[in-house]
């Protein structure tokens, strides 16, 4: 404003008024400007305070950083979360970001700059103390003169919350897995009967062509109506659901029969929260197999009960003190006692055992062993019977031994047959021995007189030398010949009756050796030759009997050769289960009609001094003792072939 000159004093009043008005205007504008300036100044001061000091007074973790991430300021809470010592100013926050998250951070930061604000940003960081933390950040940009200069934000450590949250998710997942894999159908409804959760088993059970997730929210009233045709008693099914829900109490183990034959067991549990009815939990179990099992089991049980009751074996159950607890009909019949008489009776008293035997059997049972043995039983009528017993330990359903079960078979008849057999065998052996003794005694007693007669005849001849006439000498000679035949006969009868008396003394016998020895020993006339056509085998038998067999047959062949040149062939054929020997001669032959007769005792076809008619009988007996057969092929005047077999033993010999 310039100094007012004189001229201006001389201004008109109008001019003064205009000037006054102008001044007032200018003054007002200045005042307004000044206050504006003041306000600006204050605001600036405020923001300056805010930037520099104000943050300390905030309880939440508060941090300001510049746009490159360097910390400009923060409060104590923030330092605690970030594990920063001192004031931490100048620390670059990017150092805490994990490499994996750089992109995420960069994206969010750009968003922050663009929007001016960033909320609910969660980030995993690694503090300078190498602690991993999850932080939650709400941030905004700080502008100066319309330009972003910094970012400030509230930080929360949500590591624990996150962990809890993760655990919750995990356990929810687990629960969901459990529910979806349950072999029960699950249906959870809310109080309005809308589905909250169900599982695939449920859908499968009731042929619902949806995924469990798709069922959520579905009205169960409608569902029940739709599904009721699956149940045998459709209306009752729906009514019962209403009834149960109204009752609002747990209902377990109800059975539902389906039209397709399946059976379900249903449990109902009402769900309450804070005493308020909040829903219904239904579980369905497929009971079809179990029920079938149960029915089968009942059937089996019935069947076996019938078997046990009716079977011809006596069954008894005893407890650990050997007291009878169960006896079937047949046991009563076998023992002669009534059920009342037997119950509680000590089973030991029924049977005759010696003490040691009893203890042994008891020990076996206590060890859980199954055992069978014979016992003597005295029936109520006092009769002694033999029983065969099979005893097994008896357990209750938890596996504790509670006694034993015995099955009894009356074997008295079998036993007496067995005893009879033993007695018979013994008697047979005795009588065999006696017979042999007898044969020897008879033979001795018969031969003694012959010897005496022979001695006497010989003395008569001696004492009367020269005085006897020719016919007398001839007659005395005939007496001697007759005595010899008689002795021969007695020896043969003895031999025949002795065959088979030493049955159990079989051994490997070399028939080649036997026949070769016989050819050496036997008297063979000059005109007869014996040929062994094949090597003879080793057979299993009685050596002396087999020797006698060959001796008799060879002697027989020699005896009946009437040709000038006698031929005897001995041979063998190996068959599947036996050796077939043959002894062939070119003698007088035997007529067909005599073929069977010649093996009979005393049926000699040609009576002679040497022939008693017993030789072939002995042969047949020996062959039969060796499980063989004997027969002959013959043509009168051409010759005879005797054939016989000796059965092979298991070891390749006969």
């Amino acid at each position, binding site marked *: 404003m310039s100094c007012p000159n004189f001229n201006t004093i001389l201004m008109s009043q109008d001019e003064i008024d205009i000037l006054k008005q102008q001044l007032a205007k200018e003054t007002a504008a200045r005042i307004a400007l000044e206050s504006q300036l003041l306000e600006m100044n204050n605001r600036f001061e405020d923001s300056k305070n805010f930037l520099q000091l104000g943050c300390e007074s905030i309880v939440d973790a508060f941090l300001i950083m510049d746009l490159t991430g360097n910390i400009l300021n923060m409060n104590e809470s923030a330092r605690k979360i970030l594990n920063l010592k001192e004031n931490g100013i100048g620390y670059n926050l990017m150092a805490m970001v994990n490499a994996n998250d750089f992109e995420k951070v960069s994206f969010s930061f750009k968003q922050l700059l663009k929007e001016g604000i960033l909320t609910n940003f969660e980030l995993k960081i690694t503090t300078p103390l190498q602690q991993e933390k999850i932080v939650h950040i709400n941030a905004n940009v700080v502008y100066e003169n319309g330009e972003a200069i910094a970012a400030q934000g509230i930080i929360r450590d949500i590591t624990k919350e996150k962990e809890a949250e993760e655990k919750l998710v995990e356990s929810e997942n687990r629960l969901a897995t459990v529910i979806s894999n349950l072999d029960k159908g699950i249906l959870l409804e809310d109080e309005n009967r809308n589905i909250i959760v169900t599982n695939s088993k449920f859908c499968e059970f009731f042929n619902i062509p949806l995924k469990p997730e798709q069922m959520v929210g579905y009205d169960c009233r409608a569902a029940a109506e739709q599904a009721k045709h699956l149940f045998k008693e459709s209306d009752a099914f729906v009514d019962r659901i209403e009834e149960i829900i109204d009752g609002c109490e747990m209902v377990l183990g109800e059975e539902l029969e389906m039209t397709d034959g399946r059976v379900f067991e249903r449990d109902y549990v009402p769900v309450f929260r804070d005493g308020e009815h909040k829903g219904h939990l239904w579980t369905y179990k497929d009971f079809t197999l179990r029920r079938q099992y149960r029915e089968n089991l009942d059937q089996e049980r019935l069947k076996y009960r019938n078997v046990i009751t009716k079977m011809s074996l006596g069954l008894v159950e005893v407890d650990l003190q050997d007291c009878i607890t169960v006896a079937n009909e047949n046991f009563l019949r076998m023992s002669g006692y009534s059920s009342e008489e037997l119950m509680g009776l000590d089973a030991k008293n029924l049977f005759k055992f010696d003490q040691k035997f009893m203890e042994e059997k008891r020990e076996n049972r206590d060890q859980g062993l199954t055992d069978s043995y014979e016992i003597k039983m005295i029936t109520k009528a006092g009769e002694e019977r033999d029983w065969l017993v099979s005893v097994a330990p008896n357990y209750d359903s938890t596996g504790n031994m509670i006694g034993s079960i015995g099955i009894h078979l009356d074997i008295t008849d079998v036993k007496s047959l067995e005893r009879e057999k033993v007695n018979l065998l013994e008697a047979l052996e005795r009588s065999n021995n006696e017979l042999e003794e007898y044969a*020897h005694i008879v033979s001795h007693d018969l031969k003694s007189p012959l010897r005496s007669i022979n001695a006497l005849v010989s003395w008569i001849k001696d004492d009367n030398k020269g005085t006897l006439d020719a016919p007398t000498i001839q007659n005395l000679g005939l007496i001697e010949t007759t005595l010899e035949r008689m002795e021969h006969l007695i020896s043969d009868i003895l031999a025949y009756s002795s065959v088979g008396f030493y049955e159990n003394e079989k051994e490997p016998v070399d028939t080649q050796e036997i026949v070769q020895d016989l050819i050496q020993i036997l008297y063979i006339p000059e005109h007869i030759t014996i040929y062994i056509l094949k090597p003879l085998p080793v057979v299993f038998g009685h050596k002396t009997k087999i020797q006698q067999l060959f001796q008799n047959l060879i002697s027989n062949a020699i005896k009946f050769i009437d040709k000038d040149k006698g031929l005897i062939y001995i041979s063998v054929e190996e068959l599947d289960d036996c050796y077939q020997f043959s002894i062939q001669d070119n003698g007088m032959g035997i007529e067909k009609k005599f073929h069977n007769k010649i093996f009979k005792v005393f049926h000699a076809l040609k009576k002679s001094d040497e022939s008693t008619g017993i030789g072939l009988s002995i042969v047949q007996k020996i062959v039969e003792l060796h499980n063989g057969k004997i027969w002959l092929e013959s043509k009168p005047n051409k010759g005879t072939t005797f054939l016989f077999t000796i059965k092979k033993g298991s070891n390749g010999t006969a």
Partner: protein
Amino acid sequence: MNPPLNILLIEDDAIEIMKLHRAISSLNLSHNIIEAHHGEEALEILEQKDNLPDIILLDLNMPKINGIEFLSILKNNDILKYVPTIILTTSSNQKDLLECYKIGVAGYVLKPLKYDEYVSKIENLLKYWSMNELIKL
């Protein structure tokens, strides 16, 4: 010439006894024969310990005590068990033969049918025992 033998013949058959006598005399031998017709009689004779026989000829088939029982008695006697005992029998029974050798015999001779053979066997038997050294009590 060997000294004659004292022979105890235990035999129930009269003709058998005659046969031995006759055989010895026809062989011109001077052996002394003591006869016993059964086991008990023989045991009585054998009680005279100062006059024991040199050998015993024993038949198996005898009444009362049979030959094998008699043999057992002999062999259980501390003195008599040393007297050589020869069985002279008709029994070709294998069981008898085994039993006799088991108890202990000095010989087992089968009586043949023919008297001539008998004489020949007796001759050999006596010749054999005459030549043996015998225990003289």
